[in-house]
C-alpha cells in the first residue's frame, strides 16, 4: 500500500536543502477554498460531505494535468495510518480525528497536499525545503488555478475567498515557515523573539500546528491576517522577518561557540551519545536530543552525520512512523525500546568507519 512506500521515502520538507536550510526546515503555504454549491463543513449532511469528496476526486483526477495526485480516503484509514500522515504534515490533526467522508490528495514527492473536507472543503498546501516562499507561492498559485478551472469556488467580490471561519476569509492564505531555533532556546531569548513577532501580527506555533508544543526547538512562524492584504504582501510580511530571526539564531549560536564552548560541546556530545546508546527513549527526549545534534552538525561539531539524515530521524522516531517501519503495533513502552533500537542502528551505521562509503 502507498503509505508503506512513503514510510521509506523522504518528504520534501525534510530534505534539508534550499536556502538557509541549517535553520529553516521548510516553507509552506496553504489556501482555504470552498465550493460555491455546498454549505460549509459544519452544516454539511453526511451526503453533502460524500458528494463534495467524490466531486473533487472526479473533477481533479479526470484532468490530465492533475494526474500526478494520489487520492487517499482518510475516513477509511486505520488510526495509525492517519497519525502517520499527520506526522508527515500531509494532513492536520483535526482532519485525522474528525468524522465523515474526507480525503487527502498528495503528489509523489509530497510537495503538495490537498485536504478535502477539513474545516473548509479544500485545504491546499505546498511545501518547500528551506526558505523559499516565492517558489511555494508560484506552485500553489498554479495548482489553485488548475483546481479552479474544474470547480467553482465560493468567492465574494468584496470579501474574496469565503471560508468557514471569518479569520481565514479573503486570501484564505497561511504562509508558514518552520524554523529550528535551539540556540535561542538555550540562551533563553526565544520568548523575546516571539513577543516581537506577535507585535507585528505574526503567529508562532509548534511543529504540528495550533496548540502543539514546540518539539525539538522547531517553531512555525505564520501570518494571522488574511483579508485586506494581497498574497505577495502576506508572503513579504513573513518572508521579511525570517532573515531577522535567522540572524538572531546565528548570533546566539556564535555566542554559544565563543563564550560557552565547553558547555555546548558537552551538550551536543552527550545528546549524540545518548541517542546512540539508549536502551529505551521517549519521543520527547529524542526530539530534544536530536535538536542538539542537529545544531551540532551545523556548527561543525559532529562530522559523521548529515542534516538530511537527522531530519529523517526526527520524523521516523515518531510513534506512527516507528510502528510503520517496524511493521507492528506497539504500545508506549514497546515504542521506547524500538525507538532506541532504531536510533542505535541508524547512528551506529552512519557513525561507523564504513560511513564514508555512502
Amino acid at each position: 500500500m502507498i503509505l508503506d512506500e512513503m514510510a521509506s521515502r523522504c518528504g520534501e520538507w525534510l530534505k534539508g536543502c534550499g536556502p538557509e536550510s541549517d535553520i529553516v526546515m521548510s516553507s509552506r503555504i496553504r489556501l482555504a477554498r470552498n465550493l460555491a454549491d455546498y454549505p460549509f463543513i459544519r452544516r454539511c449532511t453526511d451526503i453533502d460531505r460524500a458528494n463534495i469528496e467524490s466531486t473533487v476526486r472526479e473533477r481533479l483526477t479526470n484532468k490530465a494535468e492533475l494526474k500526478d495526485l494520489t487520492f487517499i480516503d482518510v475516513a477509511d484509514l486505520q488510526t495509525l495510518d492517519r497519525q502517520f500522515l499527520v506526522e508527515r504534515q500531509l494532513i492536520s490533526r483535526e482532519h485525522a480525528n474528525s468524522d465523515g467522508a474526507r480525503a487527502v490528495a498528495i503528489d509523489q514527492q509530497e510537495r503538495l497536499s490537498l485536504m478535502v473536507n477539513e474545516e473548509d472543503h479544500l485545504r491546499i498546501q505546498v511545501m518547500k525545503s528551506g526558505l523559499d516562499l516565492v517558489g511555494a507561492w508560484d506552485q500553489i498559485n498554479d495548482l489553485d488555478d488548475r483546481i479552479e478551472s474544474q470547480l467553482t469556488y465560493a468567492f465574494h467580490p468584496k470579501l474574496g475567498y469565503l471560508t468557514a471561519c471569518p479569520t481565514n476569509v479573503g486570501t484564505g492564505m497561511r504562509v508558514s515557515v518552520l524554523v529550528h531555533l535551539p540556540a535561542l532556546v538555550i540562551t533563553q531569548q526565544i520568548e523575546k523573539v516571539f513577543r516581537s513577532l506577535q507585535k507585528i501580527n505574526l503567529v508562532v506555533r509548534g511543529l504540528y500546528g495550533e496548540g502543539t508544543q514546540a518539539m525539538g526547538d522547531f517553531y512555525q512562524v505564520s501570518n494571522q491576517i488574511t483579508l485586506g492584504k494581497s498574497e505577495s504582501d502576506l508572503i513579504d510580511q513573513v518572508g521579511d522577518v525570517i532573515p531577522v530571526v535567522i540572524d538572531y539564531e546565528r548570533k546566539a549560536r556564535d555566542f554559544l561557540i565563543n563564550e560557552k564552548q565547553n558547555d555546548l560541546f558537552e551538550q551536543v556530545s552527550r545528546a549524540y551519545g545518548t541517542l546512540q546508546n539508549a536502551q529505551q527513549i521517549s519521543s520527547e527526549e529524542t526530539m530534544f536530543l536530536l535538536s542538539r545534534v542537529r545544531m551540532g552538525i551545523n556548527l561543525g561539531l559532529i562530522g559523521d552525520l548529515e542534516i538530511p539524515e537527522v531530519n529523517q530521524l526526527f520524523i521516523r522516531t515518531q510513534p506512527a512512523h516507528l510502528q510503520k517501519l517496524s511493521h507492528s503495533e506497539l504500545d508506549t513502552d514497546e515504542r521506547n525500546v524500538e525507538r532506541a533500537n532504531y536510533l542505535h542502528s541508524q547512528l551506529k551505521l552512519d557513525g561507523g568507519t564504513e560511513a564514508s562509503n555512502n
Partner: protein
Amino acid sequence: MKCQKCQKQATFHITDLTGDDLLALHLCPDCAKGYLETGDSSEDAPVISDVMSKQLKPLEQTADDLRELDAKECPICGISFYEFRQGGRLGCPHDYVFFGEDLEPLLINVHGDNQHVGKQPKRGITDTESQTELIRLRRQMKEVVEQEDYEKASQIRDQIRQIEGEGSASE
C-alpha cells in the same frame, strides 16, 4: 422582553464571558440577582465572576439588539447568528452576504480591514446565485424527505438537476 426564567419583564441583559463561549441571558431583577449571586443558570453557564458584572453595564443597551441578531437565520443554510457565535464557524458562503453588516465589526477586529485585495478566480467573478440556490434546495429536499413528502421531493430533485445541468453545460 420576557425573563428567560419566569414570565416577568426582563430588565437585566447579561452577557456571560466566563466560559469558552459567549452566553446571552435576559432576566428579570429577581432572577438576575439569583443568577449573579449563586451562578445558577438553566443554560449550564459557568459560575459567574466579577468579570461579568463589569461587562453588564456597557452591554445593557445593546442586549436587545444582540438577542435580535442571535435569532437571525440564514435562509439558505439555516444557521442562526447565535449558532455561529457559539461554534465560531459559518454555515455557508451566503452567510457572508446575509450577515454582512453583522460580521463587519468582527472582520475589522481580526483583520483590520474589510476589503479583499488579493487574487481573484481566473475565470472572473461568476454569478454564484444558482450555486447558492442549490444549497437551499438540497436542505429543503432533506426536510421534505424527512416529512415523507415524496411528491415535493421529486419536484425539488428536478430543480436541483436542472441547475446542476446548467452548471456543467457552461463549463
